[in-house]
């Protein structure tokens, strides 16, 4: 049974094919309206994530399928102490595919060992979130036309931000990608992610200053710098403004810079930038739905002519 737990479970060819399908859905939505007729998606959200859950559910409805499930552990069997394995085993008799979010890292992998149907990891704690990376990749493809020869800036919390780690690993499979890592010392990218990225053959430039490097970037991926990641309040106050994107800091950026953010945003991108044509973060959320549609089709083995 094929499941997607980690973005690297998908080959480059498969990702390219998902992107092709997503682009085709965007251009010809009517063609896909009944693609999943009679199929059911179980959305098992052991912790709430309204954004991701709605994206999966909208994806299934737009394919003509049905959705069942729960949106938090309190309303589920997990509250009564049932294991992930047992829950999934049972649900896999009721549904054709499962999207699962769980606060424990590795829970979707455990589910995939027991399930009779494909599991899509919809986020396991701070660990993996492959469909976020798929959304990021479609955004880059549509905004930049491809993945080669890009200078990608990643800004903010690069230590705990798993979306950043997955994106780096996914992009490092393409050629001539350069990463510019912009973060305070406390939140630098862990070395093992750098090593894993094509066994250390990728070029990384590290800096603490967004202003110093913004003019060189093709993509700027912003992440949230959370207060609780700092040892003391003083450091947080001192640093937080350095990692907030403002119209002022954008002055020297390229005309065709693509600004991304996995959302939800707190204050790391000024609202004043939302109307700038370079702001892609809301489109990114929309593209996430199309990639989830493409992934559901792929895992169900459905091809639309």
């Amino acid at each position: 049974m094929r499941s997607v737990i980690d973005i690297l479970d998908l080959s480059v060819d498969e990702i390219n094919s998902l992107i092709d399908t997503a682009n085709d859905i965007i251009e010809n939505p009517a063609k896909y309206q009944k693609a999943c007729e009679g199929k059911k998606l179980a959305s098992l959200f052991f912790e709430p994530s309204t954004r991701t859950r709605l994206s999966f559910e909208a994806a299934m409805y737009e394919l003509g399928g049905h959705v069942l499930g729960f949106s938090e552990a309190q309303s589920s069997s997990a509250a009564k102490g049932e294991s992930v394995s047992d829950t999934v085993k049972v649900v896999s008799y009721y549904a054709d595919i499962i999207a699962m979010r769980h606060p424990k890292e590795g829970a979707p992998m455990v589910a995939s060992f027991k399930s009779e149907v494909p599991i899509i990891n919809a986020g396991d704690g701070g660990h993996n979130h492959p469909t976020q990376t798929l959304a990021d990749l479609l955004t880059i493809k549509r905004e930049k036309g491809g993945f080669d020869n890009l200078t990608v800036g990643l800004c903010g919390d690069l230590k705990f931000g798993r979306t950043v780690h997955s994106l780096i690993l996914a992009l490092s499979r393409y050629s001539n990608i350069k990463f510019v890592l912009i973060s305070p010392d406390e939140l630098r990218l862990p070395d093992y992610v750098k090593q894993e990225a094509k066994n250390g053959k990728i070029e990384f430039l590290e800096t603490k200053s967004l202003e110093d490097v913004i003019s060189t970037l093709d993509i700027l991926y912003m992440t949230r710098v959370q207060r609780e990641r700092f040892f003391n309040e003083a450091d947080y106050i001192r640093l937080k403004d350095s990692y907030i994107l403002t119209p002022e800091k954008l002055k020297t950026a390229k005309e065709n810079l693509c600004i991304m953010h996995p959302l939800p945003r707190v204050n790391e991108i000024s609202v004043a930038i939302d109307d700038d044509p370079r702001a892609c973060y809301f489109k990114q959320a929309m593209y996430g739905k199309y990639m989830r549609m493409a992934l559901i089709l792929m895992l169900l083995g459905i091809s639309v002519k």
Partner: protein
Amino acid sequence: MNIDSITNGIVIDHIKAGKGMEIYKFLGLDAYECSVALIKNVPSKKMGKKDIIKIDSLLDIDLNALGYIDPNITINVIKNEVRTEKYHPELPERITNIIKCKNPRCITTTEQELPHIFKLTDKNGPVYRCLYCETKAQ
């Protein structure tokens, strides 16, 4: 000190002095009926002192997992009083229920009877990571 030679069995040699008991326990040798000798502080040219375990039976146990504890160990397999194999245990690709994941956010902390599995992710080091949450083994 002399221990009777073995007709059919396994000799685990070049164990770091003092580690013999740990390996005895790790292999669960107390559970077997056969004769087992744990000899400690044997003089060694190479190591100064070493421990040796002699097992008087060709037990079907996974000795490669010993590579995780100490890759310098030598394993000798004896058949009809002749040594037929001599090797160092390789680093196992996976180790199951030997170490536990320390990550409090890992699914192994809540899912009952889930085996603790670690996979080898870097031979130089070596680095083992939890199969489920990818936290590095300590």
